[in-house]
C-alpha cells in the first residue's frame, strides 16, 4: 500500500481517537465549574453530588486525551517530517505556546482538582477547577490557531522554500480562526450537553432519580437548547468564510460540479468522480445559491474550476451530510426537550429515550465536521504552500502498517473500556422504589 496513504490513515486514526476526549473535557471543565459555583452559592448538596459524578468522567476523559495527545506530538515528526521542515517556523512556536500556557497548567491543577478537595481550602479548589477549564480551552485555542493557519495561511514569506513568519498577529488571527474556534468550542459544548442529558436520561429511565441526576439532566437539556441553534448560525458563518477562502472545499461539500447560478442544494446524491456529476440527486432548486450567495441566481464556484486540485468529493460530501443531519436532530430534540421542561417541568419517556439515543451524537457530528474540513483541504496540508505528499516521511509502508494495527487495536480496546466504564459509573446510582411513571424533574435552585 502507498506509504503516504498509510501515514494519513494512521494520523487520522490517532487524531480521530484523540479529538473525542478533548471535545468532552473542554466544555465539561466549565460545566464542573458551574456545578461547583452553584454549590458555593446555594450549599445545596445535589450540585456537589453532580460534580462528584461528572468529575470522574472528566478525569477518565482527560487521561485518555493526554495519552493520545502525546502520541500526536510524536506523530508530527514520525509521519510528517516535511511539515516541520517547511512550516516549522510557524507551527513550532504555536505548539510550544500550547505546551507552555496550557499543558502544564491543566496537568498540574488537575491533580489538585481531582484529589485535593479534602486537602486544600474550598477557594483554592475552585481556582484549580477554573485553571483546569481555562487550560483545556487555551489548549484548544492554540491548536485551532495552528489548524486555521494551515487552512488559510497568512503573515509569512517564503525564503529558500522555507516559511518564515512576518506578522505573528496575522498568523494567530488568520481569516478562518475566529469561525473555526467558535464552531469547535460550541461543538464541545454540545457534545457535553448531550452526554449530560443522555447519561442522566438513562439513569432517570432506570429509576435512578436522585436530585443530582435531575440537575445534570436539566443542565444538559438547557445547554443543548441554547447551543444547538447557535451552532447552526456559527456553522453557516463558518461555511461562508470557507467559500471565500477555500471555495474548492465548499464545492465538494455541496457536490457542485459546475460554476453557475441557481445552484441547487443537494440533500442527497451519490457523487460520481469519473462522470463529474451526482447520481440519484435529490435537491432543492437554487438552494445552495440562496444559502451561499443570498440570491437564487448567485454564481457559486464549482469543482470544474479546481480540476486536479480539489479534494476527493465523496468523503467530504457524505461527512458534511452526517454532520448537518446530526446537528438538525440535535436542534429538534434540544428545543423539544427545553420546551417540555419549561411548560411541564418534565420530559416524556419518548424524549428521554431520544436523549439516551443521542448520548454520543456530539462525537459523531464533531468527527464528521473534522473530516469535512480536513479532507476538504486536500491535496494541501498547508493551503497553497505544502501538499500532504510533500510532507510525508521516508518510513516504509510495512512499519507504518504494523504500528497502525497496533494503535487501532489499542484504541478499539480503550474506547470500549471508556464507554463501558461510563455506563458502569452511571449504573452505580441508587434506584428508588415505586418510581412514578412521569414524575416531574425537580426545579433547580
Amino acid at each position: 500500500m502507498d506509504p503516504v496513504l498509510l501515514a494519513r490513515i494512521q494520523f487520522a486514526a490517532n487524531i480521530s481517537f484523540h479529538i473525542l476526549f478533548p471535545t468532552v473535557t473542554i466544555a465539561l471543565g466549565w460545566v464542573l465549574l458551574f456545578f461547583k459555583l452553584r454549590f458555593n452559592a446555594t450549599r445545596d448538596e445535589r450540585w456537589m453530588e453532580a460534580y462528584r459524578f461528572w468529575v470522574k468522567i472528566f478525569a477518565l476523559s482527560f487521561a485518555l486525551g493526554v495519552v493520545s495527545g502525546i502520541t500526536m506530538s510524536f506523530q508530527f515528526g514520525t509521519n510528517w517530517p516535511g511539515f516541520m521542515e517547511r512550516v516549522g517556523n510557524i507551527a513550532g512556536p504555536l505548539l510550544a505556546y500550547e505546551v507552555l500556557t496550557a499543558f502544564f497548567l491543566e496537568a498540574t491543577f488537575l491533580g489538585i482538582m481531582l484529589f485535593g478537595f479534602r486537602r486544600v481550602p474550598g477557594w483554592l479548589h475552585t481556582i484549580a477547577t477554573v485553571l483546569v477549564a481555562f487550560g483545556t480551552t487555551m489548549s484548544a485555542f492554540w491548536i485551532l490557531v495552528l489548524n486555521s493557519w494551515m487552512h488559510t495561511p497568512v503573515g509569512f514569506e517564503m525564503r529558500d522554500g522555507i516559511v518564515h513568519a512576518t506578522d505573528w498577529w496575522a498568523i494567530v488571527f488568520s481569516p478562518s480562526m475566529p469561525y473555526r474556534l467558535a464552531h469547535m468550542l460550541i461543538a464541545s459544548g454540545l457534545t457535553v450537553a448531550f452526554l449530560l442529558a443522555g447519561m442522566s436520561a438513562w439513569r432517570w429511565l432506570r429509576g435512578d432519580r436522585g436530585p443530582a441526576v435531575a440537575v445534570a439532566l436539566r443542565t444538559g437539556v438547557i445547554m443543548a437548547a441554547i447551543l444547538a441553534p447557535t451552532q447552526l448560525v456559527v456553522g453557516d458563518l463558518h461555511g461562508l468564510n470557507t467559500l471565500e477562502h477555500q471555495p474548492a472545499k465548499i464545492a465538494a461539500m455541496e457536490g457542485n460540479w459546475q460554476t453557475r447560478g441557481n445552484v441547487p442544494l443537494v440533500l442527497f446524491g451519490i457523487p460520481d468522480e469519473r462522470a463529474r456529476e451526482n447520481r440519484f440527486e435529490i435537491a432543492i432548486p437554487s438552494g445552495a445559491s440562496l444559502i451561499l450567495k443570498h440570491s437564487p441566481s448567485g454564481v457559486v464556484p464549482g469543482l470544474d474550476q479546481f480540476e486536479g486540485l480539489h479534494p476527493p468529493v465523496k468523503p467530504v460530501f457524505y461527512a458534511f451530510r452526517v454532520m448537518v443531519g446530526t446537528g438538525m436532530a440535535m436542534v429538534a430534540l434540544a428545543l423539544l426537550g427545553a420546551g417540555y421542561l419549561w411548560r411541564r417541568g418534565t420530559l416524556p419517556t419518548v424524549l428521554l429515550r431520544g436523549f439516551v439515543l443521542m448520548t454520543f451524537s456530539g462525537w459523531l457530528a464533531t468527527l464528521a465536521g473534522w473530516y469535512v474540513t480536513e479532507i476538504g483541504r486536500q491535496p494541501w496540508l498547508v493551503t497553497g504552500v505544502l501538499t500532504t505528499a510533500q510532507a510525508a516521511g521516508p518510513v516504509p509502508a510495512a512499519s507504518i502498517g504494523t504500528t497502525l494495527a497496533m494503535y487501532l487495536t489499542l484504541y478499539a480496546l480503550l474506547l470500549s473500556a471508556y464507554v463501558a466504564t461510563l455506563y458502569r459509573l452511571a449504573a452505580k446510582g441508587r434506584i428508588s422504589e415505586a418510581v412514578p411513571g412521569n414524575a416531574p424533574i425537580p426545579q433547580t435552585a
Partner: protein
Amino acid sequence: MTPFLPPETLALTFAALMAVSILAYVVLDGYDLGVGLLLQATPEEAERDRMVASIGPFWDANETWLVLGVGLLLVAFPVAHGMVLTALYMPVALMLCGLILRGVAFEFRAKAGTPLDKRRWDWAFAGGSALAALTQGWMLGRYVLGFEQGLAPMLFATLAAFGVAAAYAFIGACWLIWRTEGALQVRAVAWARDVLWVVAAGIVAVSVATPLASARIFARWFEMPNLLLLAPLPAATFGLILGLRSLLRHMPLPDDKLRHVPFWGAVGLFCLSFAGLTWSFFPYIVPERLTLFQAASAPESLSIILVGAAFVLPVILGYTVLAWCIFGGKARDLRYD
C-alpha cells in the same frame, strides 16, 4: 519578531532548555514509571492502591516534560527531530503504546467493576510502565552509538534498556520509601537495595562503551587536563552509590529519619549520569552527524518562543512547587471527593 540574541546563543539556550526538560522528565516520570514497574512485586492489593495513590496527583504533569522536551526538539531543531524520530520509529511507537496503557490504567483501575477487572488494569499499568521504560532505555542505547546497525550496538541497546528500567525502578522505590510507611516502606527499601546493583552496572556499562565507541569522546574524557578536571564526576557517582548502599542497609530509620534522602540521592545519580552524557555529546545533537548549531531553526521563531518561555517557565515552576506542597508527606488513599 527581531532576534535579540546571536544565533549561536539562541541555539545553546534552546539546547539547555531541552536538556533541562529531558532531565526533568527522566527524573519525574522516572519515579512514576518505576513505581509502575514495581507494582506487581507486591501481592497486597492495598499496597498496590497506595503505590498508585503516591503518584496519582503527579504523573500527568510529570509526563508533560516529555512533551516539552520533544516539543523543543521539534521546534528548535526540526532536522534533528526528523532524523532521530525516523531512526527510532518503532521504539517510539512502542513507547507511546506503553505510555498510553500506563496513563489510562490509572483511571480505569480506580473505576474497575470487578476485582478481576482491576487486576487486568494492574497488569496494563505495570506492563505499560515496563514497555515505556525499556523502550526509552533502548532508544538511549541506540542514540549513544549514533544509530549504528549491527549485533554489538543492538546488544548494547538491550543492556541500556534494562539499565534505564533498573534506574527507574530504583528511583521509584526511593520515592516509595519517602512517601509510604509500614510494610510497604520496608518492601520498598528491599527493592531499592536489590536494584541499586543493576543501576551501578548500567552506569559503568554506558560509561565504558561510549568512549570506546568514539575516539572523539575518548579524547574528551581521557586527555589532559580533562582527565583531572572531570575526575570528580565519576568519583561523585561512585561515592553516591556507596553512600546509598550503606544508608539503604539501615532503613527505615527510627522516627522515619532521612526518608527523603534516597530519593534525592537517586536524583543526584540521574543528574551525574546526564552530565556525563552531555559532556560526551556536546555540541552534537545527533551523535557524530549533526551539531545543534547546524540543526537550529530560524532565529525569529526561536526568539518568540524564548520570550514566552521566560515568562511562563517560572510560573510553571511555581505551581509545580505548590502541587508538591499540597500533596507532600506520606501518600494517603486517593479520593475524588
